[in-house]
């Protein structure tokens, strides 16, 4: 055979970077993703540099100038202790982002591991674990959060643990579904045919292929985590005053809406909404890119 047949005349872009770059390009071309990234980027900036850039000390009260409507001095007005709502909203991004991210990371790590194991081994282990997962899913997340926070006392660590653990089965389900279809692919058997141990097959071979769904799931869950954390602090669990937590701010002020003092409620509510929408837009953009 003299000719090296069917070597691609196409320039096989000479590295794996190319496909990553291709995916990145797809993601970046998605307007949904970009809008989401800008929103989330803004809040991340606030979380990182908020305390340095805000006009006022978010904790300093001025009780005699309470509930001032928005003005050039206080862009978002003042709250019921006379604190600057704008500063509190900006600075408030840090806590919720850290807590939500940690919780989601925890849930994603545990859930991915659990999903890999159950999806790969199937059989009795899988059945048993999935039943436990089902049982967990039967209780709404807020109720679980509420129980745990009452039992263990409110603290950020508890919030991270609770949400992380509640997310674990949900993420495990998604990962499991991905693994179930992945394990039918022959490369898994090829791995077995060179005597690979199960952990390597799981984490070395299958995991890289389900990272897409995992990443999407992570973003989606991040949105839910923000939602759940805000709900828990709204219910008075989880975060200590005088933290400029958004849910707490809404809880502290929504009763004043009737009196026409809408600003201390509206701005944190908008903050939650924009952040969750932003995260969801990113998730959407990623989903589109990975489904292609």
């Amino acid at each position, binding site marked *: 055979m003299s*000719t090296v047949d069917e070597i691609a005349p196409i320039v096989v872009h000479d590295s794996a970077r190319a496909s990553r770059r291709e995916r990145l390009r797809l993601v970046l071309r998605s307007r949904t993703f970009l809008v989401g990234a800008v929103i989330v980027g803004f809040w991340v900036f606030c979380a990182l540099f908020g305390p340095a850039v805000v006009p006022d000390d978010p904790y300093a009260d001025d009780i005699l100038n309470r509930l001032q409507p928005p003005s050039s001095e206080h862009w978002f007005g003042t709250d019921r202790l006379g604190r600057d709502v704008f500063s509190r909203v900006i600075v408030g991004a840090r806590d919720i982002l850290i807590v939500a991210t940690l919780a989601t990371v925890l849930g994603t790590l545990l859930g991915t591991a659990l999903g890999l194991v159950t999806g790969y081994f199937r059989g009795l282990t899988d059945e048993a674990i999935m039943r436990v997962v089902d049982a967990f899913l039967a209780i709404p997340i807020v109720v679980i959060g509420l129980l745990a926070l009452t039992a263990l006392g409110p603290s950020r660590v508890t919030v991270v643990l609770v949400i992380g653990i509640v997310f674990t089965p949900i993420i495990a389900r998604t990962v499991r579904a991905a693994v179930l279809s992945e394990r039918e692919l022959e490369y898994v058997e090829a791995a077995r045919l060179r005597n690979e141990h199960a952990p390597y097959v799981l984490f070395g071979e299958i995991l890289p292929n389900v990272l897409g769904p995992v990443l999407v799931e992570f973003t989606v869950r991040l949105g839910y985590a923000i939602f759940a954390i805000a709900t828990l602090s709204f219910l008075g669990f989880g975060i200590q005053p005088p933290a400029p937590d958004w849910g707490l701010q809404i809880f502290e002020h929504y009763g004043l809406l009737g009196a026409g003092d809408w600003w201390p409620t509206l701005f944190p509510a908008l903050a939650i909404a924009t952040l969750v929408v932003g995260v969801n837009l990113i998730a959407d953009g990623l989903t589109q890119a990975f489904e292609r």
Partner: protein
Amino acid sequence: MSAVAASVTAPPALELDDLSVAFRVRGRWRRVLRGVSLTIAPGESYGLVGESGCGKSTTALAVMRYLPRNGRVTGGSIHVAGADLLAMSEREVLRYRSRSVSMVYQNPGAALNPSLRVGEQVAEAFEVAGASRQEALERAREMLARVQIADAARVMRRYPHQLSGGMQQRALIAMALASDPALLVLDEPTTGLDATVEAEVLDLIAGLRAELGTSILFISHNLAVVRRMCERVGVLYAGRLVEEGRANELFHDPRHPYTVGLLRCLPRGGVSKGERPLDTIPGLLPELGAELPGCVFADRCGLVRDVCRQEEPPLYPVARGRTSRCHFWQEAHELPFTAETRTAPSARTGRGGPVLAVADASKTFRQEGQDVHALAGVSLAVGPGETLGLVGESGSGKTTLARVLLGLTAPDQGTIVELDGQVLGGTLGERGTEEVRALQIVFQNPDSALNRRFSARRILARALTKLVGLEGRRRSERVLELARSVRFDERLLGARPVQLSGGLKQRVAIARAFAGDPRVVVCDEPTSALDVSVQAAILNLLVELQGKQGVSYLFISHDLGVVRYLADRIAVLYLGRVMEVGDAATVFAAPHHPYTEALVSAVPAFEGEGRPRIRLEGEIPSAAEPPSGCVFHTRCPRKLGEICEREEPPLAEVEPGHLLRCHIPLEELRLVQATPPPNQPRSP
């Protein structure tokens, strides 16, 4: 109704004039069809062939005026039965689809609505054409009977998933014929069906055409099928019609280098690996929408000259009714062979004991509360350097047997797998590294067989580490050697599977299988996902590797041509049982098992038009409830009688090296198989 008579006055069933179609991909319009012109006369059957990606299906969709959202006709015209398709309003298009043209597609399972009963779906087609509901149902039943669905009334009440693939395709054909269309478009209608089923569907289409005089646009990658079904053929390459002519002339005397190459790639005419390697077409199809100033085939053509790259060849009239888009069509048949005559072996290296032997292999799956006997007492042996071909319809147990041998599936108790006389554990966990590396596999689909996250280098390196224990420099060197041995350009080692063509991917998979110097490699349909030109290259490679390394193959394929080319011996499986084993030539030629006979006769061939078709009744029975006696008796065209139902015949050595599982004595088989079978068929 005579097709010939109609053609005198009627306008052509289909007339494409300089049709160009482009798709918008990643923000750019890319040309997919480049000025295709063709005409199908009323009642004529026209075949469109070419490798994947050349624009066959796009042509079909354009004819249905159903291009995807990102596609559009950029030039030319389409006339169906005289009507200008591109000028039609939406309303007219509806009428056009319901009255003038119908289409049948690949993958019938997906083309039927899963939540509607089959009868309703077929009847719907009559309703659109103007029948009342009641009338439509009645005519649907008739039409289903006409496509040889025995119990039409019952089938109408079924949901699609309750029908087999062949039945589904029949229903779709019935639906397509409902409007009594001027043109029937068939897009790979039998791809994915078993050879026996394919043969029946093709028979059906041929029969209906003779009966109804419908014009047909038949699209297929399978040259033999087109040869059998069509009067005229067009060869499509990169969106260009490169050659056109009457089927028998074109296949007999191709006048375009591409056609010539395609035909040379096919293992046919009983040729085997020992005689000569298959020819291939080097290179790849140009990228979608690439600018091709000269001949579209120039980059891959062995006859290429400067003019080819600069000047687009016109359609040269070659003979009456024949055209070729090649500047040098006169020389087409002089296209140089890419492969040299093989110097090398093919002969089985050394006799001696078998490398791999399996005795009494059984495998029972538990499914929906039933025991499914996928394998029932299979005993086979593979000699050193030998290729054992494994054939049979889907569901016959080929793949299960392979998996049992490899240790991927634990067999039932009593199964004995021996490697060089040593008994192997049932599962991989019970086998040592040496034993594991001795048995490897090349999977059918290289896309799923290679981890898409890893580079070719990493895939090969990992195999070397685990199977041979190589590390560092020595491993890198060995990776390069492996790549070279499968003719994989080492510059591509850093690429991930997604960046490689199907053939290249399969090379990586083969290299991986050979990383640990295996004794036996299972090849499970290794080329059925590939185009013919690539298939040829891969088959050549397998032969070459075997010659060098003395490895044995267990070669599974539904393509008897390929098996015939590659295998030294062949085992025929049916319902988890071996029906026949013997040398390739022995098995392929009569006398053979009636099942083998049917399989062989189902293959459409280029030559020897006259070979009689042996029909098989129905589908392969469920392995959960195998028939009593000889499991083949329910479909056997040569059934003796009651003994076949009562008693399972043994697998007996009827002549040296030739084993048969049949009550009919060999001599009698020799006799009857010289004549067409007795119970043959309702002629279409």
